[in-house]
């Protein structure tokens, strides 16, 4: 927990440093070139910087895997990039980055979502669960166990998305037959073609009633 918080501060520093530096430098250069006295004074007060921050950085309060984060984000940052690039939660994968492959599937307020097509800022106040938040300590989630048992993957890249989607598929009540599972897992593409084993894993978890 402590480690995460520290990390978050460092990340924030990294994310905004280059922009701030650029704005600072550019405003100083502009100031010197144009109206020396007033503009240099404005630059000293960091008015440019404050203005650009007001426009470009939004407050985001979000709970991820049980941990609360209070962040500042650019509006264009996706939930996927927030997870992977800012918070280093790299379990969630970036496949197509266009909502076609499902590798980025996470649960937002219990609902499975393509995190690549969701702006982070639109998830203010949300509770997010990623693949990292599925296990109970060292005890794997039944779906994770079942994917290992049934060999529900080959290269593994789609697996976090498949597992998050599979858990939701059962919660939604859409895992009652092989046909239904195949239809309601169609948003998760597996290029290795592990579909048959993925279906078996989901059927077993559903039958076991643990999800």
């Amino acid at each position, binding site marked *: 927990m402590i480690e995460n918080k520290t990390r978050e501060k460092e990340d924030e520093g990294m994310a905004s440093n280059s922009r701030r530096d650029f704005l600072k430098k550019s405003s100083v250069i502009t100031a010197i070139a144009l109206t020396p006295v007033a503009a240099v004074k404005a630059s000293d007060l960091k008015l440019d910087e404050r203005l650009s921050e007001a*426009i*470009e950085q*939004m407050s985001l309060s979000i709970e991820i895997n049980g941990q609360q984060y209070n962040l500042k984000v*650019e*509006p*264009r940052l*996706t939930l996927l990039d927030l997870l992977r690039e800012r918070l280093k939660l790299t379990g969630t994968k970036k496949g197509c*980055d*266009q*909502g076609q492959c*499902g590798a980025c*599937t996470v649960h937002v307020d219990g*609902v*499975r*979502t*393509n995190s690549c*097509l*969701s*702006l982070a*800022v*639109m998830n*203010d106040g949300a509770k997010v669960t990623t693949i990292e938040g599925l296990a109970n300590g060292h005890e794997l989630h039944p779906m994770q166990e079942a994917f290992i048992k049934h060999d529900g993957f080959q290269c593994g890249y789609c697996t976090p998305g498949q597992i998050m*989607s599979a858990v*939701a*598929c059962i919660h*939604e009540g*859409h895992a009652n037959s092989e046909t239904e599972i*195949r*239809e*309601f897992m*169609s*948003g*998760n593409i597996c290029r290795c073609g592990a579909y048959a084993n993925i279906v078996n894993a989901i059927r077993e978890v559903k039958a076991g009633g643990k999800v």
Partner: protein
Amino acid sequence: MNNFQYKRVSSPIAAITELAKDPAAKLVAGGTNLIDLMKYGVMSPDKLVDVNHLNFNEIVKQDGSLHIGATVRNAVASANADVLKYQPLLSQAMLSGASPQLRNKATMGGNLLQRTRCGYFYDISAPCNKRQPGSGCGAMGGYNRMHAIFGASSSCIAVNPSDMNVALTALDAVILVTGPKGDRKIPISDFHRLPGTHPELDTTLDRKEIITGIVIPDNAFAANTTYIKVRDRASYAFALISVAVAMELEGTTIKDIRLAMGGVAHKPWRLKEAEQMLKGKQASVENFKMAAELAMKGARAYEHNAFKLKLAPNTMIQALKTASGIKA
């Protein structure tokens, strides 16, 4: 993706004000289409107005009609008890679109405004009159397998990709909108446009108006509806051809009927002549074939989509058979 300002609004007036203030502002709800287009550089609004917090989240049965709020998610609407009971066609069509994850985000209002999936529209290095008016149409002399067979113009042959819109068209839905000049009700057949000389305009919605909901008038079709979607994969693909049928049967006589086709035009394609022909007739394969022939009048194929001229009537006949329960 270009950077942009983000504004969360909590009232329709605030949303309209933002749109009126800034011509380059766009509304965002589920974001499943817009954010994708922004990543490709196809759309680059300088402000996104988040309408998720407007209170249009209800599905209500009122005076016989079904009212569905604009920000109701497609997944929620398709599983709603009243939708399943009174308008099962809508649920069936919506469930055949996209993936569960996308339907969890996508809203009713957003789906109405879903933009074409034409590859030339998405490819910013290609000409496209819809994306960049006056630049030409890449599809016309290019690869046009997914494209229109009805209602196209010399400037655009793209199709509307939505399944939901096809069902809503068959069900005579009315789109509720509000804007600076007050509220309007737009019948869905007047909501989506044919391309003409302005393919950049998908709908007749004013730039400063917002969709607040959809009303489906009461009907007696629930027992005999079907949506058949033919596509390249068994699931999670856009329609090559889709057909929505809503029918009221009296014994084996067709008392009333609505027909609409998807994947064939710039807007959901209502088949009124075929409806007129079938009204009062027996539900028989012979009549269905005649109706399908009538429906295809005026169809025109391009280099790669001539298969649609056969696939469309065949799909229509199959849908009519399924909806009426005729086996032969």
